[in-house]
């Protein structure tokens, strides 16, 4: 107990409350507000840090690694799903897209864990996070097309949704503003983006616990044991690739751990919305439940400490 980070305890509280069918609830508008705050704060903090001398060093290889991971991870995910579970093609492609993309809150929890262990990630990682959100969606669409899905009709709408997704725009925009603003931004915004960060993260993880457990209870019959196993093994596989990529791009131990967190995490905001439009035949009950109610809790509770330990060993902190 001593070692479990505070935000994770709030996640557990929410999860337990919802499993026990408590009526504890976070209003939708608050969930959205908290997630806007987290994206803004992560972006601005990263931008401020990268503006410091030497802050951008090593950005390019990491960015490239992130883009590649996002593009490529859906492929083994799709193969595994089609090979080992009875999932239909569009749903398998949609699920695969979630695992190539990333989860902002898993990253935030990862940052908190990395900092609690006395390490720091490279300041440019929020940019890598933003870069990893979308490529996986394109791969998922290609996989589904190959699988025979009709081309989506509303192509411009979809492209907009994919490329100008709100979380990417806010994350990257805040990052740029922090970068441009530098110390000015730090002076003006630090009580907001630093002081409140942990508290907001706790409240948000409480909400995620509630949502995850409620999603688990509403899980469709389609969600059988093999899918759950996928939802537990795929993050390990992704995180493994992330570790390797982090080491190859020459990141610090904290950075390697966060790269593993990114690659091991699955999207539950940007990608579901895009998939609902692009692949309407895919079952949202499957992909939302897997990413929100299986993989997210796994990463927050077990994955992150594991990836951190491995990163410390391998990158020799």
């Amino acid at each position, binding site marked *: 107990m001593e070692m479990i980070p505070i935000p994770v305890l709030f996640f557990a509280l929410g999860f337990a409350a919802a499993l026990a069918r408590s009526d504890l609830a976070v209003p*939708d508008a608050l*969930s959205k507000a908290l997630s806007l705050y987290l994206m803004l704060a992560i972006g601005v903090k990263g931008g401020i840090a990268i503006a410091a001398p030497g802050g951008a060093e090593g950005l390019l290889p990491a960015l490239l690694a992130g883009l590649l991971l996002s593009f490529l991870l859906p492929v083994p995910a799709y193969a595994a799903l089609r090979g080992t579970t009875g999932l239909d093609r569009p749903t398998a492609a949609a699920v695969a897209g979630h695992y190539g993309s990333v989860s902002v809150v898993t990253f935030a929890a990862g940052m908190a864990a990395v900092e609690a262990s006395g390490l720091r990630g490279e300041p440019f990682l929020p940019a890598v996070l933003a870069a990893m959100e979308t490529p996986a969606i394109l791969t998922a669409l290609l996989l589904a097309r190959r699988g025979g899905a009709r081309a989506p009709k509303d192509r411009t*709408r979809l492209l907009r949704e994919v490329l100008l997704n709100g979380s990417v725009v806010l994350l990257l925009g805040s990052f740029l503003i922090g970068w441009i603003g530098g110390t000015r931004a730090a002076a003006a915004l630090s009580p907001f983006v630093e002081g409140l960060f942990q508290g907001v993260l706790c409240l948000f993880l409480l909400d995620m616990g509630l*949502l995850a457990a409620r999603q688990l209870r509403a899980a469709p019959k389609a969600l059988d044991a093999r899918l759950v196993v996928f939802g537990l093994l795929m993050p390990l596989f992704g995180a493994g690739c992330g570790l390797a990529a982090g080491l190859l791009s020459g990141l610090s131990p904290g950075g390697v751990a966060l790269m593993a967190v990114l690659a091991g995490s699955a999207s539950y*905001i940007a990608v*579901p*919305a895009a998939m*609902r439009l692009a692949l309407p035949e895919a079952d949202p009950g499957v992909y939302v439940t897997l990413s929100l109610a299986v993989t997210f809790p796994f990463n927050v509770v077990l994955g992150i400490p594991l990836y951190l330990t491995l990163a410390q060993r391998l990158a020799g902190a």
Partner: protein
Amino acid sequence: MTHPRKRIEIVVEAVRAEQVTDLLDSCGASGWTILPVIAGRGRTGMRRGGDLAGVFDNVLVLCIASEAVAEKVLAAREELLGARPAIVSVSDCAVIRAEHFG
């Protein structure tokens, strides 16, 4: 004096609402109204909003239209909605100012 019209009521995924109103526009409807939905159950199971992606949100689209427009909408709906979560119902109503409703 009142004029007979059709009242079309469509419950559909929120992410697809714009496609439905585009359809109504292209069928010649003079207007429509979108109402929020808290939760719903149907063939595809329970749909309760509030997930962060909005994927399980429904909306209700209401459209008052002439019989001719209503028929076009009903004819086109299969292609648009097909097997996706959605229901469509039609009933009779009356309006005062006919010029407001195509």
